[in-house]
C-alpha cells in the first residue's frame, strides 16, 4: 500500500463500495438469494465469474500477481457489501486461497474465475490452527478437513497440514467430499483424503486466515447494518394501537441500543482495517483482528435477533427477509473464530499497545 492521504483512501473505499452495487446490491429484493438457497452449489458460478472480472478476489494481491494491491480498508468495504447483499458467492474463502497462492498459475486461475480453489484448513471446531494432522508429503495427501464453506462448488482444494500446503483436485482418486447444508442455504464440506494425489505448493495460510477473519467481521457488519435499516423502516410503518410502533418509547430505546451496536461494530472493523493498512504487526495485529471479529460476531447476532423480535410475527416467517439475515449471521458468527475464541486469543496475546 503506498502512503496515500486519508482523503484519497476514503475516496478509494467509496469507489470500491459503489462498484459493488451491481453484483452485491444493498437494497432491493432478495429473490436471487432465495432462488440459490438449499440447492447445490449454493451460489451462482456466473455471478462469481463476474465478481472475478471486477477483480474482487484479487484486491489484496500484488499487481505483479494479477491483483490490484489494495488495502484491508478496500477489502473490508467489499466484504461488507457482500454481507449486506447476502451474496452467497465464496469471496472470503476464495480470496484466502488466492492470497496464499499469489504468484502461481493457480492464483491466476482463481482470479479469472476459471477455477474455484477453496482452502481446506480446519480439522476441528473452534480453532484458528491451519496445520492440524493432515500429511501431504511425497505428493500423497491423508487427512480430514471440515467446515469448508461452499465446498459443493469447488474444483480443487488448497489443503494445509504438517507438511505445508498442497493442491488436491476434487475428483482425484482417494478424495471424498461430503457436504452439509448451512442455515444460509449454502453448505459446509468435509474433505476426506486417503492417499489422494496432491501437488505441494509453497507458502502458508496463516496471514490469509487473519485477513479472512477481519473480512468476515466486515460481512457481519454489512448484515447487521442492512437488517437494522430494514427494522427502523418497519418501526416507522407498522401501525398497531393506532400509531406506528416506532412511537412507543420501549421500542425507540431498543432501536437506539441497536444503533449503538452497529456503530461500535463499524468503528471496530474500520479502525482495525486502517491499523493493518498502516502496518500494524505482531501480537498487536492479531489482537486488533480479534477485537473486531469478537465485536462483529456478538453484535451481528444481537442485531439480527432483535430485528426478528421488532418485526413481530412476520419476522419469524421465512417469507419475510429479516430471517435471511439472522441465518447468515448464524453462519458467519463462528466462522474464522467465534467471539469467545477471539476474546480468549486477545487475552492470551497480552499486548500492551492500544489493543492491550
Amino acid at each position: 500500500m503506498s502512503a496515500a492521504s486519508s482523503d484519497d483512501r476514503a475516496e478509494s473505499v467509496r469507489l470500491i463500495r459503489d462498484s459493488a452495487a451491481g453484483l452485491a446490491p444493498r437494497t432491493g429484493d432478495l429473490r436471487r438469494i432465495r432462488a440459490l438457497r438449499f440447492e447445490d452449489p449454493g451460489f451462482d458460478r456466473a455471478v462469481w465469474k463476474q465478481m472475478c472480472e471486477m477483480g474482487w478476489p484479487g484486491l489484496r494481491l500484488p499487481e505483479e500477481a494479477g491483483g490490484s494491491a489494495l488495502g484491508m480498508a478496500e477489502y473490508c468495504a467489499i466484504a461488507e457489501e457482500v454481507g449486506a447483499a447476502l451474496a452467497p458467492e465464496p469471496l472470503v474463502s476464495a480470496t484466502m486461497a488466492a492470497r496464499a497462492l499469489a504468484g502461481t498459475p493457480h492464483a491466476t486461475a482463481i482470479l479469472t474465475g476459471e477455477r474455484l480453489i477453496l482452502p481446506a484448513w480446519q480439522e476441528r471446531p473452534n480453532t484458528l490452527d491451519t496445520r492440524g494432522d493432515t500429511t501431504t508429503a511425497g505428493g500423497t495427501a491423508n487427512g480430514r478437513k471440515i467446515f469448508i464453506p461452499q465446498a459443493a462448488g469447488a474444483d480443487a482444494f488448497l489443503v494445509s497440514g504438517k507438511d505445508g500446503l498442497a493442491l488436491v483436485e476434487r475428483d482425484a482418486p482417494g478424495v471424498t467430499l461430503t457436504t452439509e447444508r448451512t442455515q444460509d442455504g449454502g453448505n459446509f464440506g468435509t474433505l476426506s483424503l486417503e492417499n489422494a494425489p496432491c501437488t505441494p505448493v509453497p507458502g502458508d495460510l496463516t496471514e490469509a486466515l487473519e485477513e479472512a477473519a477481519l473480512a468476515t467481521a466486515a460481512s457481519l457488519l454489512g448484515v447487521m447494518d442492512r437488517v437494522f435499516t430494514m427494522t427502523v423502516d418497519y418501526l416507522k410503518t407498522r401501525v398497531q394501537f393506532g400509531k406506528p410502533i416506532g412511537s412507543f418509547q420501549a421500542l425507540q430505546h431498543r432501536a437506539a441500543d441497536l444503533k449503538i451496536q452497529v456503530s461500535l461494530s463499524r468503528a471496530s472493523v474500520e479502525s482495525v482495517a486502517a491499523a493493518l493498512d498502516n502496518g500494524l504487526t505482531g501480537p498487536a495485529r492479531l489482537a486488533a483482528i480479534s477485537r473486531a471479529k469478537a465485536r462483529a460476531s456478538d453484535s451481528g447476532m444481537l442485531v439480527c435477533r432483535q430485528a426478528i423480535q421488532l418485526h413481530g410475527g412476520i419476522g419469524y416467517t421465512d417469507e419475510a427477509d429479516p430471517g435471511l439475515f439472522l441465518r447468515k449471521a448464524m453462519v458467519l458468527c463462528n466462522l474464522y473464530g467465534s467471539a469467545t475464541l477471539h476474546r480468549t486469543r486477545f487475552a492470551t496475546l497480552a499486548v500492551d499497545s492500544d489493543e492491550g
Partner: protein
Amino acid sequence: MTAVTPHQPEDLNDLSDEAFRQHIRQWIEANYPPELRNPPKRLHWSENQVWYFKLAEQGWLCPSWPREHGGMGLSAGKQIIMVEEYERHGVARTNDHGILMVGPLLIAHGTQDQRDFFLPKILAGEHIWCQGYSEPNAGSDLASLRTEAVADGDDWIINGSKIWTTLANDANWIFLLVRTDKTAKKQEGITFLLVPMDTPGITVRPIWTIDLHDEFCEVFFENVRVPQKWTVGAVNQGWTMAKALLGHERIYLGSAKLSQYALDRLKTLADRMGVAEDPDFIDRYTRLKLEIADLKSLHATYVDVVRRGEELGPDVSMLKVIQTELFQKITDTMMEVAGENAALLEPMEGNRELNPSGLFLQARPSTIYGGSNEIQRNILAKNVLRLPG
C-alpha cells in the same frame, strides 16, 4: 379423519397425589410413542393422532372437563400433576385447541345443542380445531380485528383473513373472532363463531417459519356462509369470552419445561464440544441453571393459586417473560458453544439431541406469540404497577 370410541374413565380424584402421579407416569411410559418424545418441532395431526387416540380411548383426553361431559373432572391440583408428568416425559402437544379452548368455552357459554353436537366429536378425535384470532393488522392489538360477519337470514356471511393460525392445515373446524358491529367500541363489536373448514370460500395458506416448518397458516374467508346457530354466547359479546380463554395460556407458557429441555441439550452439546469442564462454561451453565430453579419456584406460587381454585392476576405475565427470555438465552449460549456447527441446517451428526441451530430458531418466536413480551411488560407496568399513562 378416523375417530375412536372414547372411554369414560374411572374417577381418579380419590387417589392420593402421589398415587395419582405414579399411575399417570406408568401409563405414559407404557403408552407414549418413544419416537415422539421431545420433538424438535410442533407435530402435525398425521404425526400426533396416534397419541390423541390413545388418550381418547383411555378417557384421559380432557382432564379439565367435567365428567358428565366426558372429561376426567380432575381437581386443579391433579391437572397440574398430569401436566408435570407429560413435561417430565417429553410428551408432545397434540392438536389440542378443541380440548383446551372449544370444550371449556362451550361448557361455560354454549347451548345444549352445541355441547351435544361438538363435545363428543372432540372426545372422539373427529373434530380437530384451530383458532382464528390474529389478523395481519391485528396482532398485539388484537381487538382491532376486521374480519367481519354480516347477518343474512339464518346465516352469517364472513369476509376477511386470519393469520398465525396454528395447524390450520390439520383442522376441520375453526373458532373465530369476527367483527359484527363496526360502530361499537372496538372490544364491543366482536362475536365468537364456530366454522367448518370445508365451507366454500375458505382457503388455507401455510406460512413457512424461519425454522422451515409449516406450523402456522393464513386463513382467508371470501363470502363464507355459516349458520348462525354456531354463534357462541351472545352477538357482540365474543371479546370477554376470548380473553378468559387466553388467561390460562400464560401459566402454560411460563412453565420451565422448554428452558429445562434446552439446558439439558446445552449440557449434551458442551460435553460433545469438550468444554463442559471449562470454568467459563461451568459459570454460564450454572447461572442458567439457577435461573431455571428460581423460575420454577416462582411458577410454583402461581400453580398454588390455581390449585386453590383462585383466579390468576395480571402479574402472571411475569412467568411468560422470564421463561421465554431464559429459553432464548440458553439457546444463544448453545450457538456460542457449538462453534462452526451453529451454522448447520440439520442436527449435528444426525443426532437430534445435538441441534443447536434448530433450538435457537425454535426459541425465537416464544417472545412474540401468546402476547409478545412487550405486551406482557405493558400489562405488568399498567395493570400490576399501575404506572401512569
